């Protein structure tokens, strides 16, 4: 999806210096900006809210922000791994919801074993997405839209349209949410660990290197004998796996799960978080560590709105404006990258 030839860099470089808005040109020239922007923007928001309500500057603010961010973060991490290879996974939020339901059903009986089994299953589901993409060349958007539908049904049918409530082994998962380390719930730490892991994967392993290569220039990758099919399968498997972790975070928070309950609206926030975290929607560019702050920002927007005390009816409007403002500040504007 990206045209990033030397030539294009020449042209857009000119564009930059011929720039539209002075300060944005500055941003663009300060190429490191997109790596520092996500954290900066998040803490700026925190500060602003803190002005209205000092409690947010303390541990409380952090713990609330992180608590609500955890599921979004995990979904976003999976999504950014897929975006990084130049595809998109519309089904990963649905995967996490199915995951949450399965977990809620199986944990009472099998405890930790259930978690492992479910994670494995969801990883396979993700991998299947990848396989179909790799071997049929269906555009991932259409493909995962199809799987999305199937998973929605799965969620309904598996849960028997009921809300599955964890009675046995409840604390086994809920502690992940209630137990805090430095005021931050374990579910969020889980996300942080995963982010670090994926960072390492992308920067320090061949698979990771190949993934980014595919995202930057698939033709080049193919002719460099990169196993592009595997790369795709793995990326989507990762998306499925991370979706499963998101499922755990959901169950941990709700102590129950249902097809239209918590986690049923994670798709768009997830993608938004990935983008706010500096991931390029055209592929070949992501930094899992920044996605952490992307997720925090996206999750914090509604909190901020509530905390600043906007009228309930005005909240959607403000939310929209926030999102645009935030992304305007955080988008990657690397030289030669065509913004789509």
């Amino acid at each position: 999806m990206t045209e990033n030839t030397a030539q294009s860099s020449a042209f857009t470089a000119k564009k930059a210096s011929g720039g539209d808005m002075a300060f944005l040109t500055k941003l663009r020239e300060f190429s490191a900006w997109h790596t520092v922007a996500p954290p900066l923007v998040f803490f700026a928001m925190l500060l602003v809210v803190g002005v209205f309500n000092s409690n947010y500057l303390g541990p409380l603010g952090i713990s609330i922000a992180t608590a609500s961010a955890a599921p979004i973060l995990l979904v976003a991490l999976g999504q950014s791994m897929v975006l990084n290879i130049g595809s998109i996974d519309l089904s990963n939020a649905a995967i996490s919801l199915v995951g949450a339901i399965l977990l809620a059903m199986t944990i009472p009986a099998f405890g930790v074993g259930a978690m492992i089994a479910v994670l494995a299953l969801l990883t396979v589901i993700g991998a299947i997405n990848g396989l179909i993409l790799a071997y049929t060349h269906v555009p991932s958007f259409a493909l995962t839209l199809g799987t999305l539908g199937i998973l929605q049904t799965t969620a309904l049918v598996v849960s028997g349209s009921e809300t599955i409530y964890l009675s046995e082994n409840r604390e086994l998962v809920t502690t992940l949410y209630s137990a805090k380390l430095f005021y931050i719930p374990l579910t969020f730490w889980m996300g942080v660990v995963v982010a670090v892991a994926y960072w390492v994967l992308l920067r320090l392993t061949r698979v990771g290197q190949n993934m980014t290569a595919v995202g930057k220039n698939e033709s080049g990758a193919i002719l460099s004998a990169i196993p592009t099919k595997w790369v795709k399968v793995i990326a989507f498997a990762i998306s499925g796996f991370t979706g499963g972790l998101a499922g755990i975070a959901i169950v941990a928070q709700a102590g129950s799960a249902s097809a239209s309950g918590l986690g049923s609206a994670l798709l768009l926030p997830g993608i938004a978080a990935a983008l706010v975290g500096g991931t390029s929607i055209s592929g070949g560019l992501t930094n899992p560590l920044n996605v952490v702050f992307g997720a925090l920002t996206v999750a914090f927007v509604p909190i901020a709105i509530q905390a600043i005390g906007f009228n309930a009816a005005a909240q959607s409007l403000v939310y929209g404006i926030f999102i645009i403002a935030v992304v305007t500040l955080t988008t990657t504007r690397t030289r030669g990258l065509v913004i789509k």
Partner: protein
Amino acid sequence: MRNLSIKNLSGPTGILAALVVLIVLFSLLNPRFASVENLQNVLFQVSVPLIIVVGTSLVIQMGSIDLSVEGVMGAAGMAWILLSPNTRLEGDIGVWAWFVALGLGLVLGLITGAIYAKLKVPSFVVSLGTWYVGLGIAILLYGNALLPSLTSEALARWPTQLTLGLPNCFWLAAVILAAGVFVSHYTKFGRGLMAIGNNEPIARSNGMPVDRYKIAAFAIAGTLCGLAGILATMQLGSGSPDIGFGQLFVVIPAAVIGGTALSGGEGGVIRSAIGVFLLIILNNGLVLAGVDPDYQSGVFGMILLIAVIAVAWPQRGRLKVAK
């Protein structure tokens, strides 16, 4: 570069074939599917997404995406009904309601386009933002007074009334569709969008007013969403901020299935339109076939998968790039 270029993944032939297969299938499952009422019913249902998809595909052809559909529809629809004869009994300004509502759509589109083109923010997120902005406007307009519904029979009936056997709302959609085809094939602007989608840097280096084209495309999309919002409100007979609910996940898939590659530069209005028909008929057929509601979205997904795979299969190749 031959087999390396991202080929339009589904020729209109492929998608048309898929459509025909569906129609035959559903007709077998339930004879009423092929009835005249159902034809009118389907045309009634496609008209709103058809109008939207014209704008959507213009935007996607240049490699961008517009998620703001539902929000813009809500805002425009709400503005329109509140300014038309409705049960809240105040604020009827007659035909001006149309101008205001469409203007609202236009402005929202302009905003999206301007932020995208000038501030270089990915259209995906900008339009996600304007989605909520539009929704917010709708909610504020709605306030907490009682639900406004059309009092003018003429307006409420217009969409369903038949002209030459087809419902008016479809004729409206057809006109928009024709205009869309014209724009994208017979205007410098339309071709420009294709060029931008194919290779933006070159478009710039050829001195094409890329930013202006981008903004214009989003403005058109916004206006059309506005129109769709009005039409949907008419069809429902009463206003709701969520009037556009679910439309986004009809029009974008429709465009994609129709072969308008999200990477831009491929596909076209007609193909997307076929995509719309495919999706709407799919849903309509599933209901008529009496598929268990629990399984509806699943069956939907399955058929969608099979359709796109069938269409993409022939284009497989070693050096094929699949995003």
